[in-house]
C-alpha cells in the first residue's frame, strides 16, 4: 500500500465541479503514476477540459481533493503549482507573440532567478541564459527562427515553441491540453516524437482527441463520460470495453482519425 502511494504523483478523490446546477465533473478519482504518460479521453462534453482546468487550478473545484506529490494543492493558485513543478500547456497555442522565439524560452528560464522585480538592472544579467535557451529552441527544431517574433511562426511551430518553453522549467509533470488540436499530419508526427522524447524522467497527463496518438503514446488511459470515469487501463483494455464503445458511438461516433 505504501509503495503504491509513493508511485502516484498526482491524485484526485471525489473531484467535482458544478456550474450552476450542471455537474461537469462528478466525483472523479484519478491516479497518475510517476513517470507514465497518462491520457484523458472521452466524447465531447465528457468533462475533460473542465477536469484539466481543475487540475491546473485555473478553475476551483466545488468538492474533492487534489494531491500532488503528497501535498494537498486543492486550494493553491495556478502560479504556485507551477512553482511546485506541475506545468500546463494550453489548447490554443500559448506563446508570447511579441517576444522573439529565443525570449519566449528565456522568460521561462528566468524563473530560476526566483522573482524578477529588479527593474533597475539591465536585461544583460539574463544573457547568461541565452545559451541554454538556444539549445532548447534548437531541440524543437526552431534554431533558425530564434530571433523572429513568435507571432510570425506557423501554428505547428508555435506548439513546438510552447513545448520548448514548458521544458525550460524542467517540470516534474507536464499537463498537455490537446497537444494535437488543429494540426496537420506532419506536425502531429513531429509533436508526437517530441512528447515521447520529453517524457523521459517526467510524468505527462494529456487530454487528446486523436485516438491514434493516444494509442501509441499513452501507458494508461482514463475514459470520461458525463463527468464520470467510465473505464481505465491500457489502450487494448479500454478500446475493447463495451461501455467505452457505446459512449463513443452513442454520442455520435468518436474522433478517431
Amino acid at each position: 500500500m505504501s509503495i503504491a502511494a509513493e508511485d502516484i504523483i498526482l491524485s484526485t478523490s471525489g473531484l467535482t465541479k458544478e456550474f450552476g446546477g450542471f455537474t461537469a465533473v462528478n466525483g472523479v478519482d484519478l491516479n497518475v503514476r510517476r513517470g507514465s504518460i497518462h491520457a484523458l479521453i472521452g466524447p465531447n462534453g465528457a468533462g475533460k477540459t473542465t477536469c484539466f482546468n481543475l487540475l491546473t487550478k485555473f478553475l476551483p473545484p466545488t468538492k474533492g481533493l487534489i494531491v500532488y506529490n503528497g501535498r494537498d494543492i486543492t486550494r493553491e493558485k495556478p502560479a504556485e503549482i507551477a512553482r511546485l513543478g506541475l506545468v500546463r500547456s494550453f489548447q490554443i497555442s500559448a506563446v508570447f507573440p511579441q517576444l522573439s522565439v529565443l525570449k519566449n524560452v528565456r522568460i521561462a528560464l528566468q524563473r530560476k532567478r526566483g522573482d524578477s522585480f529588479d527593474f533597475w538592472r539591465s536585461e544583460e544579467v539574463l544573457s547568461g541564459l541565452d545559451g541554454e535557451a538556444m539549445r532548447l529552441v534548437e531541440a524543437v527544431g526552431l534554431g533558425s527562427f530564434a530571433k523572429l517574433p513568435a507571432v510570425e511562426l506557423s501554428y505547428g511551430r508555435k506548439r513546438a515553441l510552447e513545448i520548448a518553453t514548458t521544458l525550460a522549467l524542467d517540470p516534474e509533470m507536464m499537463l498537455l491540453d490537446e497537444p494535437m488540436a488543429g494540426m496537420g499530419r506532419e506536425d502531429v508526427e513531429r509533436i508526437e516524437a517530441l512528447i515521447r522524447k520529453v517524457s523521459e524522467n517526467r510524468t505527462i497527463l494529456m487530454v487528446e482527441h486523436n485516438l491514434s496518438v493516444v494509442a501509441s503514446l499513452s501507458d494508461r488511459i482514463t475514459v470520461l463520460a458525463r463527468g464520470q470515469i467510465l473505464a481505465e487501463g491500457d489502450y487494448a483494455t479500454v478500446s475493447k470495453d463495451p461501455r467505452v464503445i457505446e459512449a463513443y458511438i452513442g454520442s455520435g461516433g468518436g474522433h478517431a482519425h
Partner: protein
Amino acid sequence: MTELASTEAPAASVVAETDDSTARLHRTLFIAIAALLVVAPFVAYPVFVMKVLCFALFALAFNLLLGYGGLLSFGHAAYFGMASYVSAYTAKHWGLTPELAILAGTAIAGLLGALFGSLAIRRQGIYFAMITLALAQMVFFFSLQTPRFTGGEDGIQAVPRGKLFGLVSLADDRALYWLVAAIFMGGLLLIYRIIHSPFGEVCKAIRDNEPRAISLGYRANQYKLAVFVLSATLAGLAGATKAIVFQLASLTDVHWSMSGEVVLMTLVGGLGTVFGPIAGALVIVAMQNYLATLGAWVTVVQGVIFVLCVLLFREGIVGVIAKAIKKPL
C-alpha cells in the same frame, strides 16, 4: 555533432548582432535628445519646452503601463494632479525647496498608485479601465471639495519656484529649465531601463499572454501592481514638476480630460515604443500652443488628428518610423 555546433554558432550571433545594433541606435537617439535639450532653450521659448517635457514624461509614464504592462488606465490624471497639488502646497505653505516639494508630490502619487492599483488589478480589460476612471473621479471630487488644501476652483496659485537645494534661485526660466531637463532625462533613462530589465521582460510576457505567464509560475498580479506603482510615481514626478514650472496646481490637472490627453499623446506618438510618447507630447502641446488662436476649435482639430491617427497609422508617428526601418524604437 559538428553539424549541430556549426548551426548553433551563427544563429546565436545573429541574435546578438540585431540586439546590438538596436542598442546602438537607441544610444545615438539618447545622445541626440540630450543635445536637443541643450540647444532647445536658446531657440525656443523655455517655458514652452518645459511644458512639452513635463507632458512627455507624463506620457512616457503612461506608456510604461499600457505599452509594456498592457494595462489601460483611464485615470492617470489622479497621480499627475495629486502630485501637482502636493508639490504646490508644500512649496507654498510649508516653504519646501523645489526639489523636496517635487519629491513629496512624487511620493504621494506613488502611494496613491499603490492603493488604487491594488484595487484595480483585481479586474481585467475594460473593467480595469473603468475602476481606474472611477477612482480618479473620486480624486477630482475630493480636490473640488477640499478648497483648504487645493484652493478649489482657484487652484493653488503663485507657487514659489524657490531655490534649488536652498542655494540656486529658479526664478529665471533658464535656470529652472536645466532642472526640468535633468528630471525629464532621468525619467526617460529610468523608464528605458525598466523596459529592458528582467522585470520588464516579465511585464512584456504578461502583457502578451497573462495565463501563460501564470502557468510558468509568475505571480502576474504582483508584477501588474509593481508596474502600476512605477507608472503612477513617474506620472506624479511629471505633475509635481509641472506645478513648480507654472507655479500653479489646478483642477485641470486632476480632471478626466487630462487622463484622456495622455492617452491621446501616447497613441499619436506610438504606443509601446520607447520614444513615441515624447513625439506625441510635442505634437499635442505644440498644437495647443500654436493653434490657441482657434479657441475652442483646438479640441476639434485634436479630435480630427486623433481619428486620422487611428485610421491611417495606428502605430503612431514613431511606430510608423520603427516599422519603416525595421527596428524597435
